[in-house]
């Protein structure tokens, strides 16, 4: 069975890699302001938008200006989305006549979509009006993804440039990410989805008469457009509560595979963009390989346990075999596991199966993917930023061990870079542990979990990891639509998002100002040894941080099941 899954997965990974390489090079051209095949089509829109903002194409900002622009822009988006939910009952585009969203839920949702998390403590089709979904959620899906890409590009520029204090212009990067990357990709994807049967309509519901003669109302809506961007932009917030498991979102196995592909594409392409902009493609390849290896190992382990099925069932005399609980018959365990692995490593959070129903070890892998900071491909842009923070940490240790002042790409890594890497890498885990610890200390918060013991532990840990990693997927089983979780997880999302972005930008600023040091004998950051060192550092940081909750949650559950 495991061999059979390879038949599907190996070609998938090969195609993904090839597409990522080309997309990576395309992105490099876009953000360096070079001519691309889309320039004749969208160049005018880009210039028009920049003109409206009053920004020149060659404008430059320091890292602080860049960060302030970004924060202002995100704060505006947050406020807009928050208010929109509170007044949706008075606005058009609300055929279902949904009322104002509850205050804590609205705050959580606004933060969630602004931070590219798309954690949904509510049920989409019965809470948000179409206008809110399209003007609020979908717009933020684009903007948060574009923000992430901008940060990655700014950090890449920091390493490329020398002896300068500018790292590009946020408004230019944001505009380019939107018009050259996200909008075209989402457009193409949504057309393909519609061709496969994904719903795209402004009608509220479809009424039909069942065989028993009952009238059933089925929720429909403008789904395809939101589904497309939620994957391309690693957002993950479904139009329907069942997310990509819903036939109106993903009608068939082909669309399922396509959705997995599209959520991995930009995060997998950005390392290649990094290599391309540096003029040293091997550097990007090395980072990509580190991500791919971690992705594959996690996937392999998960597949093994999913295909082996649930030992408790086998012991009970029920037909053994694969674990089908919580999975769509249309997709099966291999596709579902691939989807689960991909959605948790990329901070997407869309699901095509119920993660709660996976066997414990795949559950552990999923939590691990999120808790290491979403750097195995990771969210669009921020995944690469997070991985570069790990690179800083790795090379600091490596530099010391070979007796040199640590450096990366000729940029010396000094206390400032270290401070930022530590804040970016350890800040979110610290916040996540504090939130989880708090949740376990409050009886009502504990009661929100559907299960007790190890499985309940995993449910709460998963929710916190999902928020801190800006993933947004839920383990299900936890009713998080309570003021405590809504506010707590929203704060966690903010920490997870900006404790990566701001240190990333600060490092961009400080390395851009440095000259590039030429060194004689130095450690090659394109070597196999580097790739494995990086993997090791990511693993050990994650492992040491989450040892106890992972042991008490999924591991203990696994041991009990045996």
């Amino acid at each position: 069975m495991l061999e059979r899954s390879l038949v599907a997965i190996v070609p998938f990974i090969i195609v993904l890699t090839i597409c990522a390489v080309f997309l990576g090079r395309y992105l490099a051209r876009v953000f360096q302001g070079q001519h691309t095949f889309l320039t004749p089509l969208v160049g005018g829109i880009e210039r028009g938008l920049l003109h409206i903002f009053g920004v020149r194409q060659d404008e430059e900002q320091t890292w602080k200006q860049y960060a302030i622009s970004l924060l202002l822009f995100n704060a505006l988006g947050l406020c807009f989305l928050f208010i929109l939910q509170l007044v949706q009952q008075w606005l058009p585009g609300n055929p279902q006549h949904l009322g104002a969203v509850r205050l804590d839920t609205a705050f959580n949702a606004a933060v969630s979509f602004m931070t590219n998390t798309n954690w949904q403590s509510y049920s989409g089709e019965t809470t948000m009006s179409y206008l809110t979904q399209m003007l609020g959620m979908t717009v933020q899906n684009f903007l948060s993804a574009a923000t992430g890409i901008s940060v990655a590009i700014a950090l890449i520029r920091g390493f490329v440039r020398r002896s300068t204090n500018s790292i590009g212009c946020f408004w230019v990067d944001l505009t380019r990410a939107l018009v050259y990357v996200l909008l075209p990709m989402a457009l193409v994807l949504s057309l393909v989805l519609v061709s496969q049967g994904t719903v795209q309509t402004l009608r509220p519901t479809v009424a039909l008469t069942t065989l028993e003669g009952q009238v059933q109302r089925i929720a429909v809506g403008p789904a395809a457009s939101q589904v497309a961007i939620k994957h391309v932009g690693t957002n993950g917030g479904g139009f329907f509560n069942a997310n990509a498991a819903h036939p109106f979102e993903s009608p068939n196995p082909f669309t399922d595979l396509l959705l997995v592909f599209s959520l991995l594409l930009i995060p997998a392409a950005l390392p290649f963009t990094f290599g391309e902009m540096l003029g040293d493609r091997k550097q990007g390849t090395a980072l990509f390989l580190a991500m791919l290896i971690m992705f594959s190992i996690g996937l392999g382990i998960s597949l093994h346990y999913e295909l082996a099925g649930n030992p408790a069932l086998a012991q009970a005399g029920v037909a053994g075999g694969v674990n089908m609980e919580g999975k769509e018959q249309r997709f099966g365990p291999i596709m579902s596991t691939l989807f689960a692995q991909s959605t948790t490593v990329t901070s997407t959070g869309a699901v095509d199966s119920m993660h709660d129903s996976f066997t414990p070890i795949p559950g552990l892998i999923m939590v691990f993917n999120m808790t290491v900071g979403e750097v195995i491909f990771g969210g669009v842009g921020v995944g690469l930023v997070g991985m570069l923070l790990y690179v800083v940490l790795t090379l600091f240790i490596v530099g010391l061990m070979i007796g040199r002042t640590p450096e990366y790409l000729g940029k010396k890594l000094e206390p400032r870079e270290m401070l930022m890497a530590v804040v970016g890498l350890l800040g979110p885990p610290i916040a996540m542990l504090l939130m989880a610890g708090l949740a376990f200390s409050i009886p009502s918060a504990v009661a929100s979990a559907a299960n007790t013991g190890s499985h309940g532990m995993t449910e709460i840990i998963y929710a916190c990891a999902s928020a801190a990693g800006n993933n947004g997927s839920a383990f299900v089983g936890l009713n998080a639509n309570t003021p405590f979780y809504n506010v707590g997880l929203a704060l966690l999302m903010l920490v997870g998002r900006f404790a990566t972005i701001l240190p990333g930008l600060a490092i961009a600023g400080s390395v851009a100002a440095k000259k590039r040091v030429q060194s004689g004998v130095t450690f090659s950051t394109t070597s196999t040894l580097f790739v494995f060192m990086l993997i090791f550092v990511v693993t050990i940081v994650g492992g040491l941080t989450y040892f106890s909750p992972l042991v008490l949650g999924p591991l203990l559950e696994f041991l009990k099941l045996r």
Partner: protein
Amino acid sequence: MRKKGMLDPSVVSKAVGGAFQKLDPRTLWRNPVMFVVEFGSIITTVFAVMSAFQHTGFWFNLQISLWLWFTVLFANFAEALAEGRGKAQADSLKKTRNEAVANRLRSDGTTETVAAIDLVKGDTVVVSDNETIPSDGEIVQGVALVDESAITGESAPVIRESGGDRTGVTGGTRVLSGTIHLRITANMGDTFLDQMIAMVESSSRRKTPNEVALGILLIGLTALFIVVTITLRAFAGYMSVTVAVPVLVALLVCLMPTTIGGLLPAIGIAGMDRLIEHNVIALSGRAVEASGDVSVVLLDKTGTITLGNRMATEFLPAEGVTEHQLMDSSVLASLADDTPEGRSIVTLAKQKLGIRGRDIRAPQGSTFVPFTAETRMSGIDYGDQHIRKGAVDAIEQWVEENGGQFPDTVHALVDGVARQGETPLVVSDGALVMGVIRLKDILKQDIKERLGQLHVFGIKSVMITGDNPLTAAAIAAEAGIDDFVAQARPETKLDLIRRYQANGSMVAMIGDGTNDAPALAQADVGVAMNAGTQSAREAANLVDLDSNPTKLLDIVEIGKQILITRGSLTTFSIANDVAKYFAIIPAIFAAKYPQLAMLNVMHLHSPASAILSAVIFNAVIIPSLIPLAMRGVQYHPSSANALLWRNLTIYGAGGLALPFVGIRLIDVLLVAIRVVR
């Protein structure tokens, strides 16, 4: 400076006292990791005292508390020991100097006796036979034989004189003979010795950027593990397990990077100490670490690569002249030539002719013609013979003036010698050209080998010389130098350094003269010879007491060693955590969840013995690694990958494996001696 052994009893006993003194939180906060451990020790001690009244777990809590206190003490001891070694020497030196008196020169020319500590910069003092030099200074008048053994350990006295590049003297050294006038160049507190002492005292030592960066990482990890342990109580509570506070503190201390945190100050101090052992004084710790990154080294040809003088190696007679005749003329022309070149001609001729002793004398009635800048020849006149030797164009002119013809064959000889990068000297008797003497630069012993080591480090060596390019190229090739700058002027060095730096290179340079000072200041690592001028010493960030230019290699090695030791122990410290988790987590939870007993891979006897063993291992690993921290991790020049593999294997893989073995052994021992049940 010669050191006392690491385990010198007086140093050790002082260090033990120091370990307790350093428990003071007001000084300990400088080491945040140990500060937290001390705080944890206080908490567990309070719990131990409380449990004494409640009659539950007193013995266990007491032992945990004791070992936590030991952890702090061991770390303090390491730091105190490292400080003590350097300080012991410096203190005795400081004492002799502070007791010294100085004869200060008044403006009217008379002298007054003042205490050395009252001297200020700009004072002039007079130092005579057998007096101690009161402070750092520059000789403005006179010449003296100085015994510098107090700082360099070198027993042979050295000559220091006013003018030129040998004017600097150091406070604490002694004039053996001669009287000098000394202008004081440093206030008390800023002298060489003070700086030296400051580098080995942790309280006054400024942390290097690498240390600061590592410190940030350690603080970050400490904060993370504090949160990890605090939240563990909540996780455990949810799983219906109560974790006692001393156990949590024990887990925290085990997870925190105490090994590297405890040894970090010692590593830096011991590194400075090792430099002093190599007779190098670092005026900034930063420069020592930067020396590990150097990618280009500028070396003066003279004195660094070559012995400083050219030597005659061959006589090449002109057509119709025998070698013997040429030697005769050459010797006569060089008899009165006191330059090293001149002496080497006589020596070579003596060797070839088999003459010993001083049996060559100038003929009666001869007159010497000394070298002048105008004639650029030297020689001897006697009777009707006018023998001259000099550069080819000078002799050519001389021959033509005497109505002769400079033969083409000699031109060919001259070109041949010059093409090999050596210096031809032409000898002529009147209008008759006798032949050519080959003068060769002699490389210093084992310089080629040492430059080869630079290559292994990946450091490019650049030679600076005033010679013509041909000569320079030949020497560079012979010595294995990567690049050279010929016909260099004093300002060439500064330009060159700037050019390399603009390309992103880190440049080291060694210099001694006043005109080296700007270049020394510009270089990332500037090494001044102790014998050099005061301005050179002030511009540099390292001073080599032996005035041995190849010392840079030792500095590079020590710089790298300090970093490697820090990196390796950090890796070791973090790798240790895995085993400690496997000791403590099952100990906490296996009673309630027997399934987790499978995590007890070390098969530790009981929860109490497991936790105690982990804490004891964590404590005793610090003193066990003190020798390593002091000596530095072994370092052989090799490629970065090879070095990394080696250190990863020993300290990474070793750091993972060792505690599994160590904790198990301690557990067995604890059970055997019935300390725990």
